[in-house]
């Protein structure tokens, strides 16, 4: 089994705010060298990894996880080196005041988001500031800040990957790079088991903004797509009867949806049941909120299923997942790909 913690830390440490995913090159080259024959960057920014078929007759299977994450961007440099910012993707503003950030300017800099002291807050103490009203404290003079931090500089949360109990880990960017980790682990298992078909790993970009995934899939036209994203795990204070009851540690969640591919998904669920893989099933009848919404209708159409890793605190710097869930997702996906390959191989 791949070292999941190591992969997670390689993939989540660099800058990968939507549109700035190239901060990840080192990790991507590591993945290419270890598992694939080829890596290329699509015009719209997605990274495609291909492991060529070693034997003929297999279907072309694509595993997709998006590699961008939510973040911020500098819009103005104010007096005393404070920065105005805007959000890239949906930020959870509850966690922003006094949060630590990394500013990817001409140098990589530390900053802290301003927390307005109580005497300067007007009105309701429970009302949250809007992202556009927040500032980042760089501790620099205005002149120095202007020199080092051009308008348009991306900013991401500063964090430390931490282990919790029961093989859980806590960090940022697990949405959706932890699913990339699951995909890579699945591919490693397939390689170890001598699987001979072509394997495509699509690390798509700009999911949080513009669904750039469709451009890459258009060029690839795989026979099957397995999309993996994170899903919100059940936590206290959520309505217990809500459609989602999966919690962290329950194993992967498989989505049945009229807009992905019901037959393909049901086959996946059957496979999981028959072979005793831990999983849960949820219904998202008309939208999954992921790349699996868009991929099925690209080009000539692609049979697509969505398998999710349960995650807590989505879009924060304290996302929590269980590495057991990641391992189970990898094992289930690897097993299923072997079955798909076997079918075509006769």
């Amino acid at each position: 089994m791949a070292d999941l913690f190591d992969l997670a830390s390689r993939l989540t440490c660099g800058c990968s705010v939507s549109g700035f995913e190239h901060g990840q090159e080192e990790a991507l080259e590591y993945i290419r060298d270890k598992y694939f024959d080829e890596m290329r960057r699509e015009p719209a920014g997605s990274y495609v990894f291909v492991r060529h078929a070693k034997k003929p007759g297999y279907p072309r299977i694509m595993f997709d996880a998006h590699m961008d994450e939510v973040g911020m961007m500098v819009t103005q440099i104010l007096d005393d080196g404070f920065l105005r910012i805007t959000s890239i993707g949906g930020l959870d503003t509850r966690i922003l005041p006094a949060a630590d950030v990394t500013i990817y300017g001409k140098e990589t800099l530390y900053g802290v988001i301003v927390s307005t002291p109580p005497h300067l807050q007007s009105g309701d103490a429970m009302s949250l500031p809007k992202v556009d009203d927040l500032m980042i404290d760089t501790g620099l003079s205005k002149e120095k800040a202007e020199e080092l931090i051009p308008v348009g500089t991306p900013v991401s949360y500063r964090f430390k990957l931490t282990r919790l109990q029961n093989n859980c880990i806590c960090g940022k960017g697990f949405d959706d790079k932890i699913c990339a980790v699951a995909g890579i682990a699945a591919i490693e298992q397939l390689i170890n088991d001598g699987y001979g078909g072509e394997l495509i790993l699509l690390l798509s970009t700009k999911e949080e903004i513009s669904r750039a995934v469709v451009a890459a899939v258009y060029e690839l036209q795989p026979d099957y797509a397995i999309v993996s994203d994170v899903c919100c795990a059940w936590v206290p204070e959520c309505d217990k009867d809500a459609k989602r009851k999966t919690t962290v540690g329950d194993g992967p969640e498989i989505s049945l949806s009229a807009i992905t591919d019901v037959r393909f998904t049901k086959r996946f669920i059957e496979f999981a049941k028959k072979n005793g893989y831990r999983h849960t099933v949820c219904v998202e009848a008309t939208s999954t909120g992921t790349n699996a919404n868009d991929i099925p209708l690209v080009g000539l159409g692609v049979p697509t299923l969505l398998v999710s890793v349960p995650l807590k605190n989505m879009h924060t710097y304290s996302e929590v997942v269980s590495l057991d869930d990641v391992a189970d997702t990898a094992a289930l996906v690897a097993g299923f790909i072997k079955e798909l390959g076997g079918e075509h191989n006769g």
Partner: protein
Amino acid sequence: MAKGLQLLEKLCQAFGPTSCEYEVADLICEELQGKYDEHTVDFIGDHVFRIKGKTDRKLMLSAHMDEVGLMISAIDEHGYIYFQPVGGFDVKVLCGRKLFVGDYGKEKISGLIASKAIHQQSWEERGKATPINKMYIDIGAKSKEDAEKYVSVGDYAVFDSDFIRFGDGMIKGKAIDDRIGCAVLCDIINYIHENKITPDFDLYFCFTVREEVGRSGAVVTANRIKPDMALVLEATAVGDIAGTPAHKRVADTGKGPTVSFMDHGTAYRSEMIDFAMKLGRDNDIPCQLKRYVSGGNDAGHIHKSSGGVKTVAVSCPTRYIHSASCVFNEADYDSMYRLARQIALCPVSETPVK
């Protein structure tokens, strides 16, 4: 990094919420080993180090050891841990924060404050801060039994936040309030010890407990010592952020420590304010008046103790105080240390209590 700042870093990283200041006290005792004439610990945990002076006039120098934290109040069936704040928090700086959970003498484990993800909130809930009773600590436990292996009700949690330099001479860390005061006191004792100085005042260096909840250990200490004069070393919240009108900034980081004229606990005597500001001016130490009436500190208790004590408060201007990322200017540490040292070593005849 200056020696004082190195000590400050160690002190800030220590686990010391209110009534659990033992780790901080241990570090201070270790640092001051053999550099004082007398050491007393009272029943609530205030540590007082005395350095005898040439006169019997007593100067109390005070800083508090505790930091804002959380106390574990319940663990639910799923292993999520509920808490109550210990000290005043702006609720907006809690959600998402990494923590160390535990107690003195117990292994600290990592956790974080969480609540529903933004995707799981109703429209009414969006745009609003999550109330404290809807947040919980997640340590990755599976169940109540599992969580209880690591955490008990009554344990504490404090922020997990590193101590780093950034920008032009700025430092960020947790618990700057008031480990910075503790570090300055230690620095002064080190200076007196290294230079073999006998001060004029009989000096009582007081590292107090429980400031953050208002029922401060400084009350006990002041009543016991009955000082003639007191210097309170603190961190003060400032609003010197872009766009804040000058009259609301309180003070500016980088322009030296503040001297307070009034806060919600104390109306300081003008001769004490003038005394401190003049010492600063005469010795080329940057210092500034705190230009806003807000907050409070141990001076509120000390100046009202016994028959009344002439008290001055010198504070380090600190942004985002009571959050995981307090920010101050390292030059202010040096200025605060120098001003406090001038006050500590001032001949009694040149002070307002002559």
